[in-house]
Every structure is written in structure tokens, then in C-alpha cells.
């Protein structure tokens, strides 16, 4: 994985020292809150409902055991013993004291981590497929490119004060697990007819109050042009993006208002001019970065594992776990394991310090020391021998982390909502917890099959509700929480914004409503092989609307 060089290390330490000084001056009253707020935000410190919140970047969702252990130590020493993994492959601590932040940043720097650019109108943490470097369907590992983008965008003087925040996601597989079409720039690795590597480039996706699916503006961008082309996109945006209205300032609005063709033309013109500025990505530099992401020393193993097959036959719990939480790996004899952070009745995405340590130990022992954070708020062990899957399952179970529900109805994405977030209009975590309790029965979950429920506590859509197969948006009316349901959204390569089915539901009725939607699907699907999204796309919203509102009419 990527290691800081001298420059990175010196820089991060300087930033910690600088922020320590700024915090000191704030606490002594030398700086006013107005002066200090932008400084703390630049270092990932927000003020939430109950305390300060620290958002830590996990670049392209890749962590080592050492880093995860350090996060656990911080959770224990400075928070309430847990942390929240977010849809942007960040970790948020909810109970941080401002006076502790410099020490925390110091501890992060010691394991080559920081919280820079996790807030503000800059290029945020670059996200990537959480199966990167492991997925069986992968064309190439997206992380070297994510790292190149991270280095290029870190403190880029020209792009530090954009009209609004800017999010980039990269995937190396045709099946999009990184939701690239909901990002300001989405990049998909591909090969042209000659076999050369490059990117399909999407621009202008986003969620929030104006959800939009990104437009494809390039079918093939040679990899060496990556930085020049991204620079061109950002220049056009920086110059032409709206700064008069915060709600119209994202690049999606610019793409929408200027039209896809005109926008593409502007980018291509800028790109043509830039190409001569030696902004290309030299192959040696690309190769140097790629060496950090060289595959671990995989053993030559047979495709089939006898140990694994015996365990499947002997232990139905393990069989169930393997059927959902183990995924095909590109190397024979290996598998990818999803570590579910979605226990029944628990807050999605939270992990305690002890759980983080358990995962770190398991990764060190069985998975080449690597952990990934998925945008679906789970952890991933990317490289596990199939022979070791039973042992990994047992170890995860010990830590309360073997919930066999990856991709099922209880694998819910939820933002913090009104239990933590200062911007929320309603709670989201309790709704997620109640839904997972309602569907706790594993036989029923497995019978329902693939489905993605995503919940946000306000229209900012941090919980991706617009692209949930079932999306739930928490709102407020006359002091009461209520919940709007959208159906048919999807964040993968068939990216779609969900449709609002009708009036919202009270907090008391929302779980019943979700159950009604799912029962309707079960009654109408052609077979268990037709998953919820496929059935919805075939049927449209009418039968679901009818089932939800017939009783009321």
C-alpha cells in the first residue's frame, strides 16, 4: 500500500503543528469562532449536535492493520469507544473534544493518516471500489490512479476554493461498486481495441437536493492524460460554476445548465490547450506509484478448497455466511470477505474499538494485513485463502462481526441523522435498526435476496437514499418526523435516481411500509432469480404504490 515519502510526512506533521497552534489560540481567545471555524473545517473538525466530530480520510478505503489499530486506540482514548464508517470511505468520531484534536491528529500522522480535505469546497477524499486489486471482474487496480489523483489534488492551489465540494470516484471493474455515476467525476478503467488502458469519464453526478446521474463525456481517455483531463474539467468548473447560490454550485448544475455537448466541448478545448503543458502522467511515475499497490505474495493454490467445501457441508451457519459474505477473487484459491457492520438492531457502520482490533488481527493473520472500508459502510478483507474462510468466520463471529447479510435487506446504509447531525430533519439510525429487527429472520432475508435500502436524515442525501432500491428520506413536518419512500434507485453501472412513490409515512408506519413494498415484490417476482430491482424495473411503481396507499384511499 502507499507509504508516505519524506515530503508527505513533513507536510502532515507541519499541518498538525500548525493546527495545534490554532487550537491553542482559539482556546485562549486569541482567535474568534469566525476566524477559527474555517481552520478547523480544513482539518476535518465539525461541530455536531453533541460534540465536535472529527472526519478522517481513508484514501480509496484502504487500511493496514496498524492503521485500524490506531483508529481503535483513538476511539478508546478520545471518543466513546467506537467510530462510524461512512459512505465516503471516511471514519467519523462523534464525541471528540476540541482540545484533544491536535493529539489525535498526531496519532493519525504516526500511521500516515490525516483529516485534511474532508470538508470545504475542495477535492475530497478520492474513493474507489472496495474490492480493488482483488475483484474477479477487475480490468486493473483503480488505486494507483486514486493515489495519483489524491497527490495531485492535495492542497492544489488552484482547486482549494472551488464553487463547492468536489468528489471523485474510481473503479477498475465493469460492475460498479463505487457508485461512480453519483460523483462529480467518475472514472472507470477500461481497455481500448489495442488493449491500452484508459478511462471512461463521467461528470456531473451527485445526490443532495438535486440528484443527477453523471453524463459520460469520454468513452476512452488514455491513462497518461488523466491529470490533464481532470485539470481541464476542474478549470471549466472553477471558472464557470455558479458561486451565487450554494444549491446551484455543484458541477452537476453546470453540466445540466450548459448542456452535455457544450460542457464536453469546453472541457476538450481546455484539455487541448493543457496537453502541451506537460501535465501528462509519465509512465515511470505511474509505475512507481503502482508498485505500492503490487499484489501481495499470493500462493499458487488450486481453485477448489477441500477445507472450505467440508465446512460448507458441515456447518449451515458457515454456509450461509459464505453464500453472502464471500466473493470471487481474481486469484485461484482466494476469496474476498465482507465484514458486516450491520448487526440486527444496531447502527449501520459503527464499530467498537475492540471490533476494530479484532478485524486488524484477523487481517494481519489471514489477509496480508489489508482492510478495506466500503461505501456501503462495511469492512472488507480483500485477500483471504478459501482454506482459511472457516477460521476467519469463527474469528469474526467471536467479535460479533459475522452477520451473514452482505447485500441483503438488513445490510442498510444509513447516515447519522438527527441522533448526531446538526443538519438533520429526522432520525435515520433508529429506522435502520427497526427495519433490521423486522427482517431479522435469516431465512426470510435470504429468501428476499439482493436489495439495497438506503436512508438519509435530510435532503443532503449522505445516506445515498436517491440510489437505494428502496430509499428512505427523513423529513420534518410540524415538529414530527416523517419518511418519504423512493423506489427503483440504483448506484451501480445502471445508475438510476429512485422515484418518489407517494406521500410520506410517520415514524411509526415507515417499517410497515417497507415491509409492504417487499411483500409486494415477493408476490410479483417471476422467480427468486428476479431480484427486487429487476422486478421493479419490469413492473414500474404502480403495484407498489397501490399496495402502499390502497388502504388509505
Amino acid at each position, binding site marked *: 500500500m502507499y507509504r508516505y515519502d519524506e515530503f508527505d510526512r513533513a507536510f502532515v506533521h507541519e499541518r498538525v503543528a500548525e493546527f495545534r497552534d490554532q487550537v491553542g489560540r*482559539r482556546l*485562549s*481567545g486569541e482567535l474568534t469562532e469566525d476566524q477559527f471555524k474555517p481552520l478547523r473545517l480544513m482539518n476535518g473538525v465539525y461541530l455536531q*449536535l*453533541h*460534540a465536535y466530530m472529527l472526519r478522517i480520510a481513508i484514501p480509496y478505503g484502504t487500511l493496514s492493520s496498524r492503521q485500524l489499530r490506531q483508529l481503535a486506540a483513538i476511539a478508546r482514548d478520545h471518543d466513546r*469507544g467506537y467510530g462510524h464508517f461512512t459512505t465516503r470511505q471516511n471514519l467519523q468520531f462523534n464525541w471528540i473534544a476540541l482540545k484533544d484534536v491536535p493529539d489525535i491528529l498526531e496519532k493519525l500522522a504516526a500511521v500516515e493518516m490525516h483529516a485534511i480535505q474532508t470538508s470545504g469546497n475542495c477535492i475530497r477524499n478520492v474513493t474507489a471500489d472496495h474490492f480493488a486489486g482483488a475483484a474477479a471482474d477487475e480490468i486493473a487496480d483503480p488505486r494507483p490512479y486514486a493515489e495519483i489523483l489524491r497527490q495531485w489534488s492535495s492542497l492544489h492551489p488552484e482547486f482549494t476554493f472551488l464553487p463547492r465540494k468536489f468528489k471523485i470516484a474510481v473503479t477498475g471493474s465493469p460492475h460498479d461498486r463505487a457508485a461512480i455515476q453519483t460523483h462529480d467525476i467518475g472514472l472507470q478503467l477500461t481497455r481500448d481495441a489495442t488493449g491500452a488502458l484508459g478511462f471512461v469519464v463521467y461528470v456531473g453526478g451527485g445526490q443532495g437536493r438535486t440528484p443527477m446521474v453523471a453524463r459520460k463525456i469520454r468513452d476512452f481517455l488514455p491513462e497518461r492524460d488523466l491529470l490533464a483531463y481532470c485539470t481541464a474539467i476542474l478549470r471549466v468548473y472553477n471558472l464557470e460554476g455558479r458561486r451565487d447560490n450554494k444549491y446551484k454550485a455543484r458541477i452537476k448544475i453546470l453540466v445540466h445548465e450548459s448542456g452535455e455537448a457544450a460542457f464536453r466541448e469546453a472541457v476538450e478545448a481546455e484539455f487541448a490547450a493543457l496537453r502541451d503543458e506537460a501535465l501528462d502522467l509519465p509512465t515511470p511515475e505511474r509505475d512507481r506509484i503502482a508498485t505500492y499497490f503490487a499484489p501481495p505474495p499470493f500462493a499458487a493454490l488450486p481453485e477448489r478448497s477441500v477445507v472450505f467445501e467440508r465446512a460448507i457441508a458441515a456447518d449451515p451457519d458457515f454456509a450461509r455466511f459464505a453464500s453472502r459474505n464471500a466473493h470471487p477473487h481474481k486469484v485461484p484459491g482466494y476469496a474476498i470477505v465482507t465484514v458486516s457492520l450491520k448487526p440486527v438492531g444496531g447502527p449501520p457502520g459503527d464499530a*467498537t474499538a475492540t471490533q476494530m482490533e479484532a478485524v486488524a488481527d484477523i487481517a494481519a493473520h489471514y489477509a496480508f494485513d489489508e482492510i478495506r472500508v466500503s461505501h456501503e459502510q462495511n469492512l472488507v478483507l480483500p485477500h483471504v485463502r478459501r482454506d482459511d474462510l472457516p477460521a476467519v468466520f469463527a474469528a469474526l463471529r467471536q467479535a460479533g462481526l459475522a452477520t451473514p447479510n452482505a447485500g441483503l435487506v438488513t445490510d442498510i446504509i444509513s447516515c447519522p441523522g438527527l441522533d448526531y447531525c446538526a443538519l438533520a430533519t429526522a432520525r435515520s439510525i433508529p429506522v435502520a*435498526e427497526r427495519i433490521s429487527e423486522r427482517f431479522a429472520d435469516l431465512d426470510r432475508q435470504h429468501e428476499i435476496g439482493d436489495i439495497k435500502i438506503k436512508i438519509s436524515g435530510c435532503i443532503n442525501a449522505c445516506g445515498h437514499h436517491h440510489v437505494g432500491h428502496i430509499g428512505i428520506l427523513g423529513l*420534518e413536518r410540524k415538529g414530527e418526523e416523517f419518511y418519504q419512500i423512493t423506489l427503483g434507485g440504483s448506484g451501480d453501472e445502471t445508475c438510476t435516481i429512485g422515484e418518489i412513490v407517494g406521500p410520506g409515512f410517520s415514524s411509526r408506519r415507515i417499517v410497515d411500509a417497507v415491509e409492504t413494498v417487499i411483500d409486494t415484490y415477493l408476490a410479483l417476482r417471476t422467480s427468486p432469480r428476479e431480484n427486487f430491482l429487476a422486478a421493479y424495473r419490469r413492473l414500474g411503481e404502480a403495484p407498489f404504490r397501490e399496495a402502499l396507499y390502497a388502504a388509505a384511499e
Partner: protein
Amino acid sequence: MSKRSKTFAPVVATANDLATGTVVFRTPDGRWSADLATAEIATTPAEADALRLRADADVAADRVVDLALVPVVRDGAFVRPTALRELIRASGPTITLPTDAPRIGRAARPTP
């Protein structure tokens, strides 16, 4: 918030402690306490204005940040904020917080 109308609702001053971020309420003797039960309650618009002035001074003195006057209602022997958001600020998340050890402190309170 403390809009002038015939139906003036009693308010308390709430903010976050500058150094720790803890949710705090202004007490009659000028302290900022994490316990809503000790808060000064302004029951008239004039009292609310006076409370606001004193609280503003504490903001200016860098003791607290993010000041607001929030309506409260009496609920038997207790006082609680009218709005759900403020109720959650005052009493903590309404969910069981994940934890390894036995639960302690605010998080252990029953959900409202």
C-alpha cells in the same frame, strides 16, 4: 425561536462548551452546565432578551459556541425542550451506543 407573539414559550440558553463541545445550558448563576435541570428559564420576552445578552457575553468571552435560545416545556417535575432536535441534544442519541464495556453516562439513559 423567541418570536414575539402572545404565545411566548419559555426558553433556555444552550450552546456547546468551547474546549470539549459538550452541550451546555446557562444557569442562573452564570455557569454553563450539562444538566438542563439546572438551566435558567426565561418566562417572558424581557427575560429572554436579558438571558440572550448574558449568554452573548459568554460567547464573546470564548466560553461557549453555537448559542441558541430554545423553547422548553414543563413535563411534570421536569423541563424538556419542545423540539426533538433539542431534546436529543439535551439527552443524547436515542439509540443504544455501540460499546464494549458496560454502558455509562448519558448514553445509558432511557430513550425519550
